């Protein structure tokens, strides 16, 4: 690729890997960073200014739990002054009260609260935090009172897929604008726990029908964003809207990544913020150039009419399932490995000790230095 890439629209800032929850499908890497590896306040502030200057319009403040950064209000304030739209992606634990009020005062636009279950029991068991559900409800209600946009994020897997109708009720009762029914992506921790988490096909089909009915019924009331699990898809998702195309990720230590799981691809080397200007890293860092555009593609992607629609799907999944990060994502029906995914689902269902109703499957819970 010799073309100069367009400026990015969005940036996901993983401010920390620390988190009060231990969800067994966390999208953070298995190799979680401790607090002493996190970038200092002034580095983040410099990074946010550079991002705004190069054209980033939305910043997703995430983690881990971003609330654990005491300088979060400073970040929101700096981004708001630069005209950047801020999304707080949070567990909601410890958010309600003075903290959320301060964040709203600093210019926060949107809060996305994850609910591990649609009821307190499931939320407590999946996130391993007994008081989490009540905390989340309080944070969500306060967000609405403060006039912030509210999204309820529902990470879906075998043990809560039956709760999709309850999630819809929950989002309505909280006055949320958006509900994300997000079937978890099997990378990192979710890949490690895949056999305990993959739902069966009948549940997936039932879920799709439920969402379709609710969407039609709730036009103008609640927007439902539906992310299907790759394992049940016909075509892959355009991961990150295309590698190095619209968005990028910053890890807690300042590593500039094309996607949050990119570090699972061992052939890639990532630049750290501070080594040179962010715009230069975005433009020509080898990790961004590796899978940008379509020149890297092999067949059947290379001549596929969908190549500039799904951009080859997920590189990390291609590596995990096909053993080659440049291979066609096996989620695609045109991948020679697509059929193997169905086998994988069958295997997961037959070997897990946890059943649909049983929430105490022997997960590897997310913890620093436990993978």
């Amino acid at each position: 690729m010799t073309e100069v890439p367009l400026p990015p629209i969005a940036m996901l800032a993983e401010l920390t890997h620390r988190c009060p929850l231990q969800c067994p499908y966390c999208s953070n890497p298995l190799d979680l960073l401790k607090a002493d590896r996190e970038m200092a306040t002034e580095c983040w502030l410099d990074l946010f200014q550079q991002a705004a200057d190069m054209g980033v319009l939305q910043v997703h403040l995430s983690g881990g739990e971003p609330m654990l950064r005491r300088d979060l209000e400073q970040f929101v304030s700096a981004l708001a002054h630069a005209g950047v739209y801020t999304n707080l992606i949070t567990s909601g634990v410890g958010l309600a009260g003075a903290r959320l009020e301060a964040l709203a005062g600093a210019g926060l636009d949107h809060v996305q609260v994850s609910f591990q279950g649609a009821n307190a029991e499931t939320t407590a068991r999946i996130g391993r935090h007994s008081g989490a559900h009540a905390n989340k409800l309080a944070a969500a209600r306060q967000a609405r009172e403060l006039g912030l946009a509210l999204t309820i994020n529902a990470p879906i897997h075998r043990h809560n897929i039956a709760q999709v109708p309850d999630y819809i009720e929950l989002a309505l009762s909280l006055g949320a604008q958006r509900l994300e029914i997000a079937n978890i992506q099997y990378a990192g921790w979710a890949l490690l726990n895949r056999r305990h988490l993959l739902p069966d096909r009948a549940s997936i089909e039932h879920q799709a029908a439920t969402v379709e009915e609710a969407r039609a019924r709730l036009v103008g009331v609640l927007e439902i964003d539906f992310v299907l699990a790759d394992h049940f898809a016909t075509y892959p998702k355009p991961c990150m809207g295309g590698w190095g195309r619209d968005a990028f990720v910053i890890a807690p230590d300042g590593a500039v990544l094309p996607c949050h799981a990119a570090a699972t691809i061992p052939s890639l080397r990532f630049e750290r913020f501070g080594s040179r200007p962010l715009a230069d890293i975005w433009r020509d860092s080898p990790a961004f150039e590796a899978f940008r555009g379509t020149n890297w593609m092999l067949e059947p992607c290379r001549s596929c009419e969908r190549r500039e629609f799904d951009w080859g799907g997920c590189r990390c999944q291609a590596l995990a399932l096909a053993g080659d990060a440049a291979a066609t994502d096996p989620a695609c029906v045109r991948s020679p490995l697509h059929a193997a995914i169905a086998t994988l689902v069958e295997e997961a269902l037959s070997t897990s000790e946890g059943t649909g109703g049983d929430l105490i499957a022997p997960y590897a819970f997310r913890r620093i230095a436990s993978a």
Partner: protein
Amino acid sequence: MTVDRPRAFVSRQSLPRLAPYVRLRFDPVRHAWAVLSPERVFWPDAIGLDILQRCDGKTPFSVMVMSLALEYDADGGEIDRDVGAFLQQWADRLLVRL
């Protein structure tokens, strides 16, 4: 099920305004107006921008149609239909309040 915020429909008396969490701003990098909203960025065309800039919560739909008809030297009935459809679509996306 209780829905305390039913779907809103465009009427002559509607006072359209951007939802409090939606921001319309000029992007100097791309030299274009952008609508910033949860998880999404929209790039309205010239007519869409003219409509959105009139969504101030004070201008009734009927007045908005008249001023746009004058500005575009177009038939009022046609503008009425087009602007009504535009606002309904944006209200259904929860970006505009009616």
